[in-house]
């Protein structure tokens, strides 16, 4: 919460305090009103225990009433200061496109489920982005195109994880070029970005073991070059027990895009992926953050109403007693 007009609030406070002090020290306040009946034995009446009791109760309610009025005044001052709930809305979030790219070749079948789980967590942690999901082996299949419907994303990731149980997924073995064509898969994933304007940040999260089993149309290097050209960051996720040569090769190709390669162990460290994606994105979209302020009326209004209600209650209680 921030105050847009703190001086107004301060001015209201000062004015209220001045009014209160003026009312307290107003010369006519203690003097008898016109037509007051003078009473000679007042001291005798004030000395009565019952009077002291009543006066004490009166004072108590008066103090409560004053406190409530002070609270109400503070509420009014708060309203006058026009509080807003300032939140930094990061524009890049809604401008992020992430394509999750999963190699479903036989060599990856051991870790696919873990990868999808990590994708699920990734999708849950990133919000506001558009996420697409592509499976590839010899050919690429789009499970869902770029979308920001979180429920839809979660549902399809879950369904895909169930469908991965051993059998081949339809459409991933089209053609006779071989299997596990990483370069072709990456190139297909790059095609999934529907908007190519400079305002958007584009990321591919490529989960693969980099074990090519055929003759791809695009080598990984060529695909990575296309990614660089299109301004797409490519992150690699590699099983931790993958061969070092293949991993290093992938890393060497993906580094130029600005991405990196992470190892996916049996206990996948999802936060590192999320962090990496988010950090990368933030770096890309730095300076796009815009602060958004929504008027915050209820705290002041609630204080004022509460104070007034309390004051009127205690006033009635005081006058009635």
């Amino acid at each position: 919460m921030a105050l847009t007009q703190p001086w107004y609030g301060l001015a209201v406070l000062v004015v209220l305090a001045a009014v209160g002090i003026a009312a307290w020290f107003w010369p006519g306040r203690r003097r008898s009103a016109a037509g007051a009946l003078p009473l000679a034995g007042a001291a005798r009446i004030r000395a009565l225990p019952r009077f002291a009791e009543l006066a004490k109760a009166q004072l108590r309610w008066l103090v409560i009433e004053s406190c409530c009025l002070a609270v109400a005044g503070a509420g009014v001052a708060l309203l006058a200061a026009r509080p807003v709930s300032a939140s930094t809305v990061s524009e890049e979030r809604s401008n992020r496109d992430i394509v999750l790219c999963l190699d479903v070749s036989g060599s990856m079948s051991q870790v696919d489920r873990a990868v999808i789980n990590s994708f699920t967590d990734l999708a849950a942690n990133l919000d506001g982005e558009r996420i697409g999901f592509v499976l590839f082996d010899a050919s690429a299949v789009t499970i869902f195109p770029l979308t920001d419907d979180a429920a839809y994303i979660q549902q399809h990731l879950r369904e895909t994880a169930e469908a991965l149980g051993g059998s081949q997924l339809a459409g991933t073995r089209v053609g006779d070029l071989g299997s596990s064509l990483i370069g072709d898969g990456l190139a297909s994933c790059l095609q999934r970005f529907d908007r190519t304007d400079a305002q958007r940040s584009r990321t591919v999260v490529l989960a693969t073991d980099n074990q090519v089993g055929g003759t791809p149309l695009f080598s990984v290097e060529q695909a990575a070059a296309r990614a660089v050209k299109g301004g797409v960051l490519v992150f690699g996720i590699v099983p931790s027990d993958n061969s070092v040569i293949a991993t290093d090769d992938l890393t060497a190709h993906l580094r130029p895009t600005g991405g990196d390669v992470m190892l996916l162990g049996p206990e996948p460290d999802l936060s590192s992926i999320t962090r990496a994606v988010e950090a990368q994105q933030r770096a890309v979209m730095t300076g796009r953050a815009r602060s958004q302020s929504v008027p915050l009326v209820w705290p002041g209004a609630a204080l004022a109403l509460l104070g007034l209600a309390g004051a009127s209650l205690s006033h009635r209680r005081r006058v009635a007693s």
Partner: protein
Amino acid sequence: MARLTRVRRAIALATRHRVGGLYEGVHSSLHAGRSMEFNDLREYVRGDDVAEIDWKASARSGGSLLVKRHVAERRTTVMVAVATGRSLAGMASPTETKLDVAIQVAGAFGSLATQHGDYVGLIWCDGHDIRAARPSTRDVELERMLGHIEAASTADRPEGDLGRLLEVTATTLRRRGIVVLVCDDVDIDADLESRLRRLVVQHEVMVITLADLDPTDPAIADSPVVGLDDQRELLKELRRDPRLREAIEADRTERAARRTTALSRLAISSLHLSGTDGLVPAVLSLVRSHRHAR
């Protein structure tokens, strides 16, 4: 003469049917014999009241001024001692101040006395001083005395000193007379009692106490009430409390009981007044009961 006229009117209304009794009222008890011879005259000496001169007898006697001696000797002095001060500016009832009541009662006693040809004197508190007006039989003087009471009872005056008032009264009035003490709704403490005892030995004493307004009276629930001593308001909210009303009533009753006990111990007739309504009949019956008591 406005004040006195008002008193006289009240007396006339109250005594329309018993004028005969009125003239015996004030001090017949002082004088057992009422059958003094009328033609007991003596020569005028300096100091005698000029009004006492029997002009016809003087004319007949050829040269010397004769005064009606018995009348002169029978005259007594009614000394009205009023504890004037700030507290008389307070209200006795929702419509009358205690000053109204004090003037009315002083005027009633004075009027009864002057109509009977007695001297009326006044002792009152003027600020911190005690002042005395010379006893007189004249209405003009009586009116002036009532004016003194009124002038000395404004809200900016200090409280009257009752003890000193009684002390000065005892020393001022040397001859045996009647002392009418008009004071607040006071408690009679030991000091006051000893002073009153001294007065009682010397004079006939009657005590008139003036009631204070009851601030819890429902009739004045909506009008503000301000204490004279501290100038602070007694809040309406507090005055509405029925238990406070009971407490005030109990306090007042207790004080009245204590006072009555003390005064009856001293054989002093007393009267508690809370307004001018029925004041004159009350005064007359006080005088009458006082006479019977001796």
